[in-house]
């Protein structure tokens, strides 16, 4: 029986002796050598995802002005950040659009710019226009501010994403006779295409389906820098049906993650626009999974053929919250470029970048192999049962 502790694995990382492979590489290793031998050899498996994650944003402390100001409304390049916090704190959400954007009044709206783009530009080092308004108080008399700022001028900027890294997601199709513009991309009528958005066998939570190693305090690759899992994500919903391998067959676990924006890279934080829907932020996340025992190794060896996603109609079923999925399809089928639904062959397209995910898994592997990145044992792991997580809908 193979048993390894975090401390033992970290000692090997420090000594430059840890064996680290990506969640893609481990699959062929297991096929060649079997679970037991691979578990004995491999210490860490790196997983990754790089896709649009709408529930993302940045907490800023913008720095005090002279005279002082309690900012009640804050705009960055015309995109409003929530300022109902202390004097110069604000939170910019990835999906916020400028007040001047006509949105879907000219349908489908283009949504060329928004919170996600501001975040990307700040990380890139570009100047951004800060505009702030206040009602003025005895302690904070200033009422107006306009200033060009850069990320390096701001005291603090913390990327805090309440829901990232979804464990599985819908495959979106359109059963109606008109084109749909959704957060799952453009869906052509009559099942003209099927869009999906996870990195499959590379995706973090597919490789640790019962969250044995991932929880509060897990150190991760986040947006090109180092971050941490800070909580279970919003809508974390572990109580769904799972395959025999433990992998959920519908959207399940989620992660809340955070990290210092200043050490991140615009290569892995990209503002994106969805025609007729809005803006978002593509976030790059990489999570190392320690091979604590053979079971953990077996989980990480899961392949696209063994991971299934539900096919959901976005013309009626999803928006109205009614009906059942049209079927299940494996990520191997999705990645092949076409799937069969009934007697129809439907072309598929991803919204998350498998290529980018693979690059992140390799970067994280190198960080660990070089001894730059040690693993952390979580303070607590993500809930496996929803007993403690209220997952109720509104009427």
């Amino acid at each position: 029986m193979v048993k390894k502790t975090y401390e033992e694995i970290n000692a090997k990382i420090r000594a430059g002796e840890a064996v680290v492979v990506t969640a893609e590489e481990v699959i062929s290793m297991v096929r060649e050598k079997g679970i037991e031998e691979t578990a004995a050899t491999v210490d860490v498996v790196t997983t990754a995802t790089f896709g649009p994650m709408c529930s993302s944003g940045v907490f800023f402390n913008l720095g005090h002005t002279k005279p002082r100001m309690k900012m009640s409304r804050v705009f960055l390049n015309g995109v409003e950040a929530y300022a109902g916090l202390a004097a110069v704190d604000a939170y910019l959400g990835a999906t916020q659009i400028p007040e001047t954007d006509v949105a879907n009044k000219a349908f489908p709206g283009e949504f060329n710019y928004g919170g996600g783009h501001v975040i990307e530009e700040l990380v890139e080092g570009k100047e951004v226009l800060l505009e702030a308004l206040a009602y003025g108080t005895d302690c904070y008399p200033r009422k107006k501010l306009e200033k060009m700022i850069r990320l390096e001028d701001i005291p603090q900027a913390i990327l805090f994403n309440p829901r990232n890294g979804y464990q599985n997601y819908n495959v979106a199709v359109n059963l109606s006779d008109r084109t749909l513009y959704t957060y799952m991309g453009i869906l052509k009528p009559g099942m003209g295409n099927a869009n999906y958005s996870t990195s499959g066998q590379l995706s973090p939570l597919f490789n640790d389906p019962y969250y044995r190693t991932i929880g509060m305090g897990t150190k991760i690759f986040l947006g090109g820098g180092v971050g941490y899992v800070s909580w279970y994500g919003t809508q974390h919903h572990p109580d769904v049906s799972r395959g025999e391998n433990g992998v959920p067959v519908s959207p399940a676990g989620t992660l809340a993650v955070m990290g210092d924006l200043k050490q991140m890279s615009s290569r892995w934080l990209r503002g994106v626009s969805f025609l007729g829907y809005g803006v978002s932020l593509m976030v790059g996340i990489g999570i190392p999974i320690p091979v604590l025992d053979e079971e953990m190794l077996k989980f990480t060896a899961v392949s696209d053929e063994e991971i299934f996603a539900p096919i959901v109609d976005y013309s009626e079923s999803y928006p109205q919250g009614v009906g059942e999925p049209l079927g299940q399809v494996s990520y191997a089928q999705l990645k092949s470029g076409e799937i069969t639904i009934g007697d129809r062959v439907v072309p598929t397209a991803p919204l998350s970048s498998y290529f980018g995910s693979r690059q992140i898994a390799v970067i994280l592997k190198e960080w660990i192999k070089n001894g730059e990145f040690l693993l952390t044992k979580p303070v607590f792991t993500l809930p496996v049962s929803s007993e403690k997580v209220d997952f109720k809908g509104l009427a």
Partner: protein
Amino acid sequence: MLNTGGVYSVKQKMVLYFPSTVTEQPFTYYLIKDYNLMVNILKAHINPRKEGRAVVELSGEKKDFLAGLDFLQSRGVKIFPLEQEIVWVEERCTHCGACSVICPAGALVLERPDMTVKFLNEKCIVCEHCIKACPSRAMEARY
């Protein structure tokens, strides 16, 4: 001019500019009926009483093709070579692949097993669908 061999001896894409005085006149009908041309409208932006532009591909026998162009010019339509092209800005591309099901010409493909996006310029018909379909706005039109 392309020699596609056999039935059509000329096949060419071009930009047609319609002054506001002619935008309400039919042209496609006459090109087909009187000049025996195949008209493939790749893109058109024409409003009544305003100037319009269209990108078309005309194909037919050389004699008919030239006569068709003369007809268009005699009615006040100006003909420009198709100089607009779609450019793939690789550094903005995240290789997600969302474009691959949107491009009607097979010019944007997701190559497997690498899962990288490739832009095949020679297949592009300049329909511009990819420009707004690309989430990271990596496709641009250049004139």
